[in-house]
């Protein structure tokens, strides 16, 4: 039997970072329809920082998040629609509302060492009959043994799968393979991998993860996402099909979905010097645009801010530290 991989498309969630959370319900609905037509099994949508992420800290959504979710649900056809929830930002109440509207999946995202803040959300999702996946962010920061310990916590709460997110795009293929194979060896749940392309390795790392036994892989059309973006969905499909790995998708249709929808959003994912610095320093990919803005404001090189944030071992969600660091660097510069 041919190997099968489930690609979870997160163009409408991680991709939201790249366009500063400006998806209109119409745009989101159109992309969802194109993905559904291509046979994409799962579509994640929402603010880049998950449900209720619209804020001063992470940027406000241009449209109401539930209107966007509704448009995705209305156009998703047979695809399952999911949300991301970061405990500490989103709550069980947000989860219930998304479930009532028809969301069938939640990925509960915590820092790689903090799975226990997701207990109540995973449990509630299971109680509601939703699929619940534990999503460990910044997993490049910890060794496989630590990741397994945290994955087991998610398993004990009732998660049906565990993801490792290389949120900083800081891994090389051996890092991805070592983590996935260790989890596959010691955990009975399906294992997923979410890549970022800051070091140009999103496809390479995804493939290394699959070869090490990963069951689920994240992609976004044209790689739209935080930092230098994610693994391009249409490229994943092509690579997997070429290797004889089933995705259940129509390759031409997924190529069309990318080609027909992403250029009109007005952004193209490239590895510029700032994205590359994020991968190099190992900081959260969504710091990308925030750091560029802070650098402009204080007359700094965004790379200095990003490298300092890496040195301070900041984690996902600490966007306020960008301002804090920029403010301090600017003061130091003035004193010199």
């Amino acid at each position: 039997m041919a190997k099968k991989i489930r690609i979870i498309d997160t163009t409408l969630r991680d991709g939201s970072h790249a366009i500063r959370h400006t998806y209109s319900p119409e745009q989101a609905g159109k992309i969802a329809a194109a993905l559904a037509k291509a046979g994409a099994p799962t579509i994640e949508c929402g603010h880049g920082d998950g449900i209720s992420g619209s804020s001063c800290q992470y940027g406000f959504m241009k449209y109401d998040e539930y209107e966007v979710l509704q448009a995705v649900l209305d156009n998703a056809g047979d695809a399952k629609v999911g949300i991301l929830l970061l405990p500490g930002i989103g709550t069980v109440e947000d989860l219930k509302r998304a479930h009532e509207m028809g969301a069938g999946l939640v990925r509960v995202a915590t820092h790689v060492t903090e799975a226990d803040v997701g207990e109540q959300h995973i449990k509630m999702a299971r109680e509601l009959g939703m699929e619940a996946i534990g999503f460990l962010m910044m997993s490049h920061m910890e060794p496989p043994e630590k990741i397994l310990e945290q994955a087991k916590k998610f398993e004990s709460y009732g998660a049906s799968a565990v993801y490792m997110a290389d949120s900083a795009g800081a891994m090389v293929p051996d890092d991805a393979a070592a983590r996935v194979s260790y989890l596959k060896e010691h955990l009975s749940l399906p294992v997923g991998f979410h890549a970022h392309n800051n070091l140009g390795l999103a496809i390479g790392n995804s493939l290394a993860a699959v070869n090490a036994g990963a069951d689920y892989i994240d992609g976004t059309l044209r790689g739209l996402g935080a930092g230098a973006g994610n693994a391009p969905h249409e490229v994943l499909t092509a690579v997997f099909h070429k290797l004889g790995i089933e995705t259940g998708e129509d390759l031409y249709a997924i190529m069309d979905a990318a080609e027909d929808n992403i250029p009109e959003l007005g952004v193209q994912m490239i590895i510029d010097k700032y994205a590359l610095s994020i991968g190099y320093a190992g900081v959260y990919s969504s710091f990308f645009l925030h750091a560029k803005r802070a650098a402009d404001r204080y007359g700094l090189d965004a790379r200095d801010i990003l490298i300092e944030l890496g040195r301070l071992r900041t984690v996902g969600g600490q966007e306020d530290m960008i301002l804090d660091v920029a403010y301090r660097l600017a003061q130091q510069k003035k004193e010199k």
Partner: protein
Amino acid sequence: MKKIKCAIVGPGNIGIDLMEKIRKRSQNLELAMMVGIYEDSVGIVKAKEYGVRTEIHGLQPLLDDPEIEVVFEATSASQHLKNAPLYKEAGKKAFDLTPAAVGPYVVPVVNFEEHFDSANINLVTCGGQATTPIVAAVSRVQEVEYAEIVSTLASKSAGPGTRINIDEFTETTSAALVKVGGAKRGKAIIILNPAEPPLMMRNTVYCRTKDAPDLAAIRESVGRMVAELQKYVPGYRVTMEPELSGDNTVVTMVQVEGSGDYLPPYAGNLDIITCAAVHMADTWAARKLEGGRR
């Protein structure tokens, strides 16, 4: 000198820190009882060492002792919901350090006087104690349409209670930004960071004002508020003075270093709430003693 007798219910990290603070810092309180569950818990053992009476078989001995006038609740929200009516019936003044939110939301530097006589004082959350004073300082200058706070804590300082009830933190703190801070709407975000050595509790406060912000007046108001707050939380410090950030939005950053009474200095998040509780109870006791002498 005569002192008001008090008890601590819940001999965990918070309870022990309260005990150290009452012993070291309070002029007007005498710790008369520590109530726990296990004879050999760290808090009960420590209380015994200090010669404090300990009880491990329920609240009755506390409720039956008319000399104990003040109770610090350091158990859990669900436990306090059960205990609060019993304290009230027994005529004891309760300072609630759980997120049960039975009594009015109180942050001493903002609204203690208003709720001075309330039988139950609810200390909100650590994030609420650290951030609502900044929001209140802005909203006394001009109308705040929306306040948003981000509290980042060292992973080590967030115990299992905080972790499993993380939604209670965000919801209670959001409510406090409105009820205590005076903002029209509020949103709270909490982040845990496992970096070693552990980082100090840090907080970012965003206030979106209705009209263009008067930055000079806001800075002056925040400065006065912080000076008042530092009287009972010495480790409270502004790391970024109010700055403009986006349309009509003012951002301020504060850090809280703990006093290291029992919990280590990075646990400023726990220190600020125990400092606030002891400060209020001590002030209440002082006035009560003064009244008694008159």
